[in-house]
């Protein structure tokens, strides 16, 4: 919520109910993605990318954005699904893009498991909870690149080339 400059609160009484209140800044005019830069100049590629993201809207946006730029994309909604996809996929997987904070199997645990099956797998982590942990320190510890959510398809594509090249 803080990422959007908004606030959420609630009041609740046992047995009587709960009211949540969400306050979001009112947009004036057309929405403008944060720091979108020269979309046309972001190049695509032919690599195979595994996208693991539990939020369907974010996952679809990432998958569609990457496919539109020529990538082969495998998409999973959680760690267990990702492991299953990788077992069934006999071609190369060049890059894992995974949400860092997920129930059951978290992003770094998943990367660890997949790297055993696919040594040298490159990893791009995403998360919206950048206030709850030290990003640079975490990335040094688990070895990966980080992209903060929310991101646009263009920013994602940019980051993907950075990691792959």
């Amino acid at each position, binding site marked *: 919520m803080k990422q959007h400059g*908004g606030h959420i609160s609630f009041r609740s009484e046992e047995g009587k*109910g709960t009211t*949540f209140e969400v306050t979001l800044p009112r947009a004036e005019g057309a929405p403008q993605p944060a720091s979108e830069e020269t979309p046309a100049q972001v190049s695509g590629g032919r690599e195979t990318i595994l996208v693991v993201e539990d939020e369907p809207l974010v996952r679809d946006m990432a998958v569609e954005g990457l496919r539109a730029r020529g990538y082969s994309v495998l998409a999973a909604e959680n760690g267990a699904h990702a492991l299953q996809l990788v077992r069934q996929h006999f071609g190369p997987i060049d890059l894992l893009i995974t949400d860092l*904070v997920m129930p059951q199997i978290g992003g770094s645990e998943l990367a660890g498991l997949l790297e055993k099956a696919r040594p040298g797998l490159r990893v791009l982590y995403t998360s919206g*909870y950048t206030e709850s942990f030290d990003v640079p320190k975490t990335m040094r510890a688990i070895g990966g690149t980080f992209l903060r959510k929310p991101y646009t398809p263009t920013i994602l594509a940019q980051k993907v080339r950075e990691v792959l090249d």
Partner: protein
Amino acid sequence: MNLVANARDAMPKGGKVTIEADSVVLDRDEAGRRGALEPGPYVRIRVADTGIGIRPETQPFVFEPFFTTKDKGKGRASGSPPASAS
């Protein structure tokens, strides 16, 4: 969407969910009470249910990611990050 699903799940015996949205302009006081927002134009959305409520001892944890008091497989956690649509 999660808030509405949670409201439904909080009412196993049925009840009423009320969803309201309005445009507000928050002054410095009102903005300050909402996590130190900047004063200005906002959209306010309220989702109210007439369900079981949240126990006082549970309330501090409501906004933790993946927090839930529900049985496994019964919807997303009430604390599912409200910002998760980002």
